[in-house]
């Protein structure tokens, strides 16, 4: 455990390293360990596209451990070119476990290569291979060619055991919303990690190996695995809804609640939402046969989709679409044609674009055009209007290749709206596009957005669960009291899940007690649930500290777009509401032990982060 490899892309020097257990116990793996390494190694003010930024490709101690539900995950950690924040992007599929099987818990990309390369990570070693012939290729072609090349070395019968994560044209062209794609349709999506690989000229990483992660205590492991599986099977969400309808089962629920962001958050009700939900996907585009292959490694839930559109003009097939993407490519742009939405989704995967941000930014453009902010000539004849599915698809190409207006879209919603003189139309937090819930009708979720260290995100803390889904217990979504404490707990626990790494859908059925048991059984540690949550708190504080050092993060960034704070929801069940952020922030800061959005020295020292407090003090950033 703790085996990482550092690849210096400038010198081609490769260094193998094993991290001490004392570090692993403090940061676990995945996101936590990546954040720790980044804080130690990346100068916070480094140019995200420069040689001083690093890209950490991480697994966690539970990644690839058979019997841990939904543990087929990995993550990327880097300084984001979208918003200069410390940023992790999580992904499912099969790549993560196979990186573990190849013998590594982490691969660190350092400096910048002179020419395109890919890494061949196998059987405990790493080789740098030329990738000039792959530069320009989409993610599917890249994956196929890399597998073809490498299977010639390990044997054709092993081709299916080679897994690839790569970038598409969007990453090569340094789109700030470019993602990493693994297994052709799974994305480490948010924050422009694909562009960081692009800046380093890393086209792909291929993994292969037969090493299986050891389990320290088999008896305890079997016990907790049986207990967890029973709870997952008993949970109606994980056992029935997600396998049957996928994540898009949420579309009708969220739209009914009046918080389904429509036309760039102008309203929370999309009249045609039912045409795009999980039920419609099952009825119209799903391919059940291929869906089986899309399921993440070791997952008993199986929410993945595989879809096919047969009729022109939107012919295509591939993994997805998911809840977030049918929203960003649907309600956000007012497109209700599931064929167009599916096609646009396939393209985000093939071109390597973050599907949330890509759809979101097109919605931003549509509102800018609606408000007369974009000169006609900038659109080169495109009829950019709400609901235009053909334009939606066309803009994906232009965005990935930075053609015309696509060049502005590739910069993300904040820079786009600023360029055209209407920064208030960027629905972003810390420069990252908001996802598929309007927080005016879910106050705690608004606080979660505002305080998310990586910017607008629903997965730092999923307050929709208690506020809308009633899991674990329904709370009043319009109430602000008590949300700060609830949110902190969610953020800390999710930070550890991102470090183990397990899928957050597990939490619909199991919680910290089971995760700690899994971690202890696999590692042989003796961690308590309190220790576990403390790790999460440490990660969250370390991230905030990095951000403070990077761009002065603090209270002024713990906010939301003006529209959500000042413009009451115009219609639907949340009509008349805005996010009452200030009412929640004080409680949140109190439970965090923060002043004005920054951790104090005493909080950092309590978490064993004196060295971080010293760094902040040197820069005059410590509050109080």
């Amino acid at each position, binding site marked *: 455990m703790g085996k990482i490899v550092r690849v210096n892309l400038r010198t081609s020097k490769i260094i193998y390293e094993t991290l001490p257990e004392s570090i692993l116990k403090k940061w676990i793996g995945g996101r936590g360990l990546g954040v720790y390494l980044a804080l130690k190694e990346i100068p916070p003010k480094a140019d995200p596209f420069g040689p001083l930024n690093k890209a950490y490709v991480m697994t966690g101690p539970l990644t690839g451990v058979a019997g841990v539900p939904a543990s087929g995950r990995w993550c990327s950690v880097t300084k984001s070119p979208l918003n200069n924040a410390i940023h992790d992007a999580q992904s499912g599929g099969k790549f993560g476990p196979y990186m573990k099987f190849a013998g590594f818990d982490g691969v660190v990309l350092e400096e910048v290569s002179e020419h395109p390369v890919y890494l061949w990570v196998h059987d405990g070693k790493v080789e740098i291979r030329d990738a000039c012939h792959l530069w320009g290729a989409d993610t599917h072609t890249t994956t196929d060619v890399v597998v073809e090349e490498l299977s010639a070395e390990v044997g054709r019968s092993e081709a299916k055991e080679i897994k690839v994560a790569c970038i598409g044209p969007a990453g090569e062209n340094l789109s700030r919303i470019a993602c990493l794609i693994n297994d052709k349709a799974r994305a480490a999506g948010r924050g422009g990690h694909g562009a960081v690989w692009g800046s380093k000229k890393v086209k792909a990483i291929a993994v292969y190996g037969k090493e299986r992660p050891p389990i320290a205590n088999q008896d305890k492991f079997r016990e907790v695995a049986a207990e967890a599986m029973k709870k997952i099977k008993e949970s109606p969400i994980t056992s029935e809804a997600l396998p049957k309808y996928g994540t898009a089962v949420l579309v009708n*629920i969220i739209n009914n609640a009046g918080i389904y962001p429509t036309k760039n958050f102008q309203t929370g009700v999309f009249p045609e939402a039912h045409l795009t939900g999980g039920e419609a996907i099952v009825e119209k585009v799903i391919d059940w046969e291929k869906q089986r292959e899309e399921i993440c490694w070791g997952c008993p839930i199986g929410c993945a989709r595989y879809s096919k559109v047969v009729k022109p003009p939107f012919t295509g097939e591939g993994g997805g679409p998911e809840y977030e993407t049918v929203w960003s490519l649907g309600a956000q742009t007012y497109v209700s044609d599931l064929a167009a939405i599916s096609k646009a989704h396939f393209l985000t995967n093939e071109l390597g674009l973050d599907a949330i941000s890509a759809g979101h930014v097109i919605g931003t453009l549509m509102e800018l055009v609606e408000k007369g902010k974009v000169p006609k000539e900038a659109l080169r004849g495109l009829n950019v209007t709400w609901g235009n599915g053909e334009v939606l698809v066309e803009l994906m190409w232009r965005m990935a290749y930075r053609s015309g207006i696509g060049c502005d879209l590739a910069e993300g919603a904040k820079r786009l709206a600023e360029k055209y003189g209407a920064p208030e139309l960027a629905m972003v937090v810390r420069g990252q596009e908001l996802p598929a819930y309007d927080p005016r009708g879910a106050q705690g979720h608004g606080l979660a957005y505002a305080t998310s260290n990586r910017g607008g995100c629903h997965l730092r803390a999923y307050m929709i669960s208690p506020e809308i889904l009633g899991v674990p217990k329904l709370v009043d979504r319009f109430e602000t009291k008590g949300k700060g404490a609830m949110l902190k707990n969610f953020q800390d626990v999710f930070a550890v899940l991102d470090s183990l790494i397990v899928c957050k859908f597990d939490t619909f059925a199991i*919680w910290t007690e089971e995760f700690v048991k899994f971690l202890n059984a696999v590692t042989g540690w003796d961690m308590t649930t309190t220790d576990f949550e403390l790790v999460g708190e440490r990660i969250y504080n370390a991230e905030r500290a990095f951000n403070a050092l990077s761009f002065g993060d603090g209270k002024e960034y713990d906010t939301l777009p003006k529209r959500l704070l000042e413009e009451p929801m115009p219609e639907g069940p949340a009509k008349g509401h805005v996010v009452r952020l200030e009412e929640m922030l004080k409680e949140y800061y109190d439970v965090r032990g923060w002043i004005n959005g920054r951790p104090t020295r005493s909080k950092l020292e309590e978490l064993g982060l004196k060295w971080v407090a010293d760094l902040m003090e040197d820069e005059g950033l410590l509050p109080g």
Partner: protein
Amino acid sequence: MRVLVEVFATLQERLGWTAKYVEINAHEITLEKLVKGLQDLYDLISVDAGRDLSDLLGSYIVFVNGVHAQFKGGLNALLRDGDKVSIFPPVAGGGLEYLPY
């Protein structure tokens, strides 16, 4: 008076309908009475909930005009002409009491 009842996900499959208007000869009706009046829905829900409607709101997400029924009086929520009831099966909700909070 007329109330719109919508069902989603597995309920659509099991019941064979997605939405229906219910005509009621009164000025108002409780949620409980409305559901009991829809025989196929009531049978399905009561079977799922151990033949007792009291579990309905713990297992299903039930909105009255987009607001959780719990905040409208629960099963005693009063429905009036033009109201909409949306019922989501335990596909995305349910009382998992062993979790924190």
